[in-house]
């Protein structure tokens, strides 16, 4: 123990002399942990929200019975089943509007709820109040805040009905309101109707079979495997995770570089300790203890950083998830214990990875080898050939994943392998460049400049690799986002051609509004839309019925057959979204069977249209044909054509005339703006992580240069002695770093483009189901190039300033100390 403590004290005393190195190691680990845990916190937050939303009161976790034809069924069915011994609990679900937002209303019967659901409801007196009258409306604290109301308030619904007094139930998901079943039936105007029966217990083996009690009116559904939202948003979160990992890896580059240097510089200490009798075990324990301590401290700091990153990005992510998927996120970051555990775990793993090779070398070293000058790095040639072999391996893996892989994960694997392979190959390219320079150089100083750069390459290569990763990610993601923005904007222009879009509050209002609009001179066309929701291969799909009109046939961006619109109007053709086509492997001419209440409806695919940003599948058919097959389909959505200058007047008139009879109304410009906002926020998170990665790589470069600076003195002293001024030497140093950065930036352009191609053609298609046109943006490349030079310049500034001002005595010491 004494040995261990003094060995630890002697080893750690090193950091006092090299605080910059310690800082680099600390920052590397902390940054890696911060970005990783920040992303993890965002993902956790979202997943928890989905689970809670899908699983309000544990309802998603219980198997149940639903109407075979969708929709509702009579409460008598519930009584009949109970009286036959089936332990079922009634449920009525629906949407209600409060202010300008929709909420999911859940009517439950607490006495018969399955036990784990009942446990989430209040007990005792509160339960008595919940049962009413007047009952209680249970909401999450966030929902109460969003409504701007206090507990006990009873907000009015659109039709003069009132919610029971609100009460907080902190386990509920935001956006869900839980009331007694009787209250739900009243508020949703479905007296005596239910939407689902939950099975509190499996029916006994000898129970009366379902078919003889309910005929084929009810069918059994199993507990939700994964919440629908979680499935829809999987790709979004995979994207985030990939970025988190990238940042983590870049952070580890820093930690690895500084730990390697620290190891090298501490070899004499270890040699001395061993010579005076410290045991290898004590030394190894001390090294590991130091590492663990450092990892814990850096990990803790990283967790705080991660929290801040997540807190800063949460609003954007919440907004984009709501816009894209309708997923409501808890706006306040909650931190689960396992988040802490995994974050600290990542810090420890990171430290272990960063230090592993050094530690192993220490343990394997015979005592005398330590006592001799020790070649920590392989000879450069050996090192380069190993890099080359690894790079080739990684690139081969990238190609294999691309060729043989399937699914989003394979896309990411190929991307990661491509990045890794390119990063490993970077020193090779730089070495080749420098050899070329050396061969061409005239004059001793120029020759020295290249030769010395070549010698410096191994020490800087990790930082340069990190820089390459950051720069090419920047180019890749930048190209994708910019390309997407242009495509999206153009698509919106083509797609959103109607001047006004609105939704009527009810069928009755819809008919009145239609009549009123028909009489207006300034309305050129009223285009009612019908929408039904269905599921194709367990994927939610919206089927939209539109009337035949040149608004669609003239503007709808489409890959189609010539007679597409005629076929649609005839009722035997359908247009499907790109996502749906890819998911179901449909192409023009394929047939599609849509399940309708009156049996399957066979349609031929006559067109495929882009539907960027839609999480669900989409299909477009003729409205009349749709109504014939879904007689219950409600006709509430409308598009109006008018002269653009008349649009504001029409909107005002509509609102004045019908008031609450119009649920939503928006003009073309506002709709476009809103779509673009959702788009921007979706990529705001990506852009932020992208920028953070670049910052991290700048830190990596800075750390490497700082730690190398001390070693540089020995190499520069002979030149100084030979008459090269410190100022000139500093300029050489600066030029060298800039040269490295510029060369790295050059390599990053093709790599970035390859990355962009992978994102656009592989990852996006697999993640979201759409493919974007591939654009190149040379101006972006210039930006990145400049960015690389600035990054390198800034990182080099401090070490080089120090060099320029170095005391001649320090340079002299090099000679004095020479053996």
């Amino acid at each position, binding site marked *: 123990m*004494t*040995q261990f403590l*003094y*060995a630890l*004290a*002697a080893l750690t*005393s*090193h*950091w*006092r*002399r090299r605080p910059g190195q310690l800082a680099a190691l600390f920052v590397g680990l902390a940054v890696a942990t911060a970005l990783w845990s920040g992303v993890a916190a965002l993902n956790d937050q979202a997943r928890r929200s989905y689970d809670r939303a899908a699983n309000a009161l544990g309802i998603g976790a219980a198997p149940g019975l639903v109407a075979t034809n969708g929709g509702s069924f009579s409460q008598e069915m519930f009584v009949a089943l109970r009286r036959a011994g089936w332990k079922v609990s009634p449920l009525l679900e629906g949407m209600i509007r409060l202010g300008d937002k929709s909420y999911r209303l859940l009517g439950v019967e607490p006495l018969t709820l399955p036990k784990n659901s009942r446990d989430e409801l209040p007990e005792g007196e509160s339960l008595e109040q919940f049962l009413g009258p007047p009952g209680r409306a249970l909401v999450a604290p966030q929902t109460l805040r969003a409504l701007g109301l206090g507990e006990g308030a009873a907000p009015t619904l659109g039709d003069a009905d009132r919610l029971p007094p609100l009460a907080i139930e902190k386990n509920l998901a935001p956006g869900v309101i839980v009331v007694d079943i009787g209250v739900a039936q009243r508020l949703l105007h479905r007296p005596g109707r239910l939407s689902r029966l939950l099975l509190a217990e499996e029916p006994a083996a000898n129970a009366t079979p379902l078919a003889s009690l309910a005929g084929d009116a009810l069918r059994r559904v199993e507990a939700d495997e994964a919440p629908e939202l979680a499935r829809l948003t999987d790709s979004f979160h995979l994207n985030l995770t990939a970025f988190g990992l990238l940042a983590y890896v870049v952070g580890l580059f820093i930690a690895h570089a500084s730990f390697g240097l620290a190891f090298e510089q501490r070899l*004499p*200490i270890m*040699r*001395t*300790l*061993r*010579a*005076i*009798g*410290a*045991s*290898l*075990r004590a030394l190894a324990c001390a090294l590991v203890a130091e590492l663990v301590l450092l990892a814990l401290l850096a990990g803790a700091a990283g967790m705080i950083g991660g929290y801040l990153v997540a807190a800063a990005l949460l609003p954007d992510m919440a907004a984009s998830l709501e816009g894209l998927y309708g997923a409501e996120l808890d706006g306040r970051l909650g931190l689960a214990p396992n988040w802490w555990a995994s974050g600290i775990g990542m810090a420890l793993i990171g430290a272990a990875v960063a230090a592993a090779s050094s530690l192993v070398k220490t343990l394997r070293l*015979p*005592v*005398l080898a330590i*006592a001799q000058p020790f070649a920590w790095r392989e000879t450069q040639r050996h090192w380069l050939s190993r890099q080359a072999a690894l790079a080739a391996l990684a690139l081969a893996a990238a190609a294999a994943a691309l060729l043989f892989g399937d699914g989003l994960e394979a896309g990411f694997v190929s991307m990661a392998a491509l990045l890794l392979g390119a990063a490993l190959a970077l020193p090779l390219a730089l070495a080749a460049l420098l050899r070329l320079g050396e061969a061409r150089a005239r004059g001793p100083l120029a020759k020295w400049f290249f030769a010395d750069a070549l010698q410096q390459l191994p020490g800087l290569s990790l930082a340069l690799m990190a820089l390459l990763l950051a720069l090419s990610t920047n180019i890749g993601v930048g190209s994708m986002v910019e390309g997407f923005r242009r495509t999206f904007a153009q698509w919106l222009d083509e797609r959103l051609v109607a001047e006004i879009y609105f939704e009527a509050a009810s069928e009755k209002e819809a008919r009145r509004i239609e009549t009123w609009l028909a009489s207006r001179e300034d309305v050129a066309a009223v285009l009612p839309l019908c929408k039904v929701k269905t599921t194709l291969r367990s994927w939610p799909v919206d089927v939209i019925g539109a009337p035949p009109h040149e608004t669609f046939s003239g503007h709808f961006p489409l890959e189609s057959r010539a007679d597409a619109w005629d076929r649609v109007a005839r009722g035997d053709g359908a247009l499907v979204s790109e996502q749906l086509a890819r998911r179901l492997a449909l192409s023009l001419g394929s047939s599609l069977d849509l399940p309708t209440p009156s049996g399957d409806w066979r349609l031929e695919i006559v067109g495929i249209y882009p539907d960027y940003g839609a999480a669900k599948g989409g299909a477009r058919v003729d409205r009349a044909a749709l109504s014939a097959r879904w007689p219950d389909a409600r006709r509430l959505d409308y598009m109006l054509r008018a002269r653009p200058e008349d649009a504001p007047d029409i909107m005002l008139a509509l609102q004045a005339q019908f008031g609450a009879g119009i649920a939503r109304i928006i003009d073309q410009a506002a709709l476009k703006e809103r779509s673009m906002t959702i788009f921007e926020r979706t990529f705001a998170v990506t852009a932020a992580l992208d920028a953070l990665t670049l910052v991290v790589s700048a830190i990596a470069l800075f750390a490497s240069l700082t730690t190398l600076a001390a070693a540089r003195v020995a190499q520069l002293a002979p030149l100084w002695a030979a008459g090269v001024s410190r100022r000139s030497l500093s300029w050489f140093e600066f030029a060298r770093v800039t040269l490295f950065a510029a060369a790295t930036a050059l390599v990053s352009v093709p790599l970035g483009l390859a990355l962009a191609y992978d994102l656009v053609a592989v990852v996006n298609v697999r993640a979201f189901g759409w493919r974007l046109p591939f654009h190149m943006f040379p101006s972006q490349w210039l930006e990145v190039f400049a960015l690389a030079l600035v990054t390198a310049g800034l990182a080099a500034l401090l070490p080089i300033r120090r060099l320029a001002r170095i005391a001649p005595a320090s340079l002299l010491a090099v000679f004095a100390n020479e*053996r």
Partner: protein
Amino acid sequence: MAIRAESNSTSIRNEGAQSLLRVSRLSKSYPGPQGALPVLRGVDLALDAGTSLALMGESGSGKSTLLHLVAGLDSADDGSIHIDGRETTALDDEGRAALRRRTLGVVFQQFNLVPSLTVGDNLSLQARLVGRHDPAWSDRLAQRLGLEHLLDRYPEQLSGGQQQRVAVGRALAPRPRLLLADEPTGNLDEATGDAVLDLLLELSATAGAAVLMVTHSARLAGRLDRRARLVAGRLVAP
């Protein structure tokens, strides 16, 4: 006298019953381009407690190798080393490390100080490592070595002679039975080197430590009790 040179032998043999250090038929070779390169070819040597021996020889004669083997920094191919009655050649790495910190003091040509620790901490490092820190003895060493005003400095702030004195003090602080010194004054000018050697011998005597010193200088060797010379891996009388 326990050590005596025999003209017909390459060994210096101990005649006493219990020598502090006894080296028997020690052989060591290093791999070279044309097969194994023998460095030591059966060396016998003995050293009694409290005495000193200078090990001389040309560069590459194997004198440093012999010292490293005695210090347990390397392992022999054949033969044995007994220190204080224990056969150290049979020890594993842990055992040899324990031997070094408990029984030996080592001073190298390079000063081998921990640059990030103060002079005071360097001085007491080995004694603390073995749990044998004696403040009074340390103070006395520091005073004798002329370091008492430099204890809070760092090695780089010291001259070469001062640094080597710290190394000597560190090796003697745990009161080792045997001090091994490899060209301890090789990096110092003559006057400074002499002063350091004086201190080394004087303090070793005070501490009761035997001294085995490698040097190529006959002048310095003459200051020790005995001398032996290594020629082509064999020990000969000087």
